[in-house]
């Protein structure tokens, strides 16, 4: 499949809406169906749509930064998990609780935090897989 200008423009115009939908799935994971893994994969599919144009995907999301983002996401998940251990409530326990001033935004802040971290990690990981495989076939 040759890469043309039409594909280029269309992909670059439509990709932000896929990122927006992925972000919606990640952040509303505790109210509506969705969550970290589902939203992360939709964000990765937005990156794959950007790969339709010649070099936009690797210019906007360089693989070095994607792997750094994935490692940082996993490190933050580990930090949150050990924070529960340090505070004496147990590994991966609910360390945030239910603060009153946020109850109009969300009633499960720990689930929101974990969903965002998991969404970042899964999105970066799956996009890294796909961009590596694309670079294999187009030297």
């Amino acid at each position, binding site marked *: 499949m040759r890469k043309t200008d039409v594909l280029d423009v269309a992909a670059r115009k439509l990709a932000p809406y896929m990122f927006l939908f992925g972000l919606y799935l990640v952040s509303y994971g*505790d109210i509506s169906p969705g969550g970290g893994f589902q939203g992360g994969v939709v964000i990765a599919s937005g990156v794959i749509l950007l790969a339709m144009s010649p070099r936009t995907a690797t210019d906007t999301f360089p693989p070095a930064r994607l792997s750094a983002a994935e490692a940082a996401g996993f490190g933050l998940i580990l930090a949150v998990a050990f924070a529960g251990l340090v505070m004496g409530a147990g590994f991966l326990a609910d360390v945030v609780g239910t603060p009153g001033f946020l109850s109009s935004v969300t*009633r499960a802040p720990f*689930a929101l935090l974990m969903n965002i971290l998991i969404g970042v990690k899964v999105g970066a990981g799956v996009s890294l897989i796909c961009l590596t495989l694309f670079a294999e076939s187009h030297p």
Partner: protein
Amino acid sequence: MRRLVEIIAVLLVGGFLFLALHGEHPGESETKTLIVENGQDDTGARNLVTAVYLGYRAFDTFGETIVLLMAVSGVIYLTAGREQE
């Protein structure tokens, strides 16, 4: 010979799946009642799936992220290593 091994493997997997899914499954169970009644109060999340995978069984979610990390590392190792031939 290899075709025979593949056929046997597929038949075994199909047989176990049939045994697992065949027959009547109970509509009510203690776990289901406990999660449906206490899920929102214990974790604060209205989505009961989120209450299970981030509240009651968060350790399995942690293991899932590790599995994804291994998968990404494996793919990068297997494809990027070939460019140096």
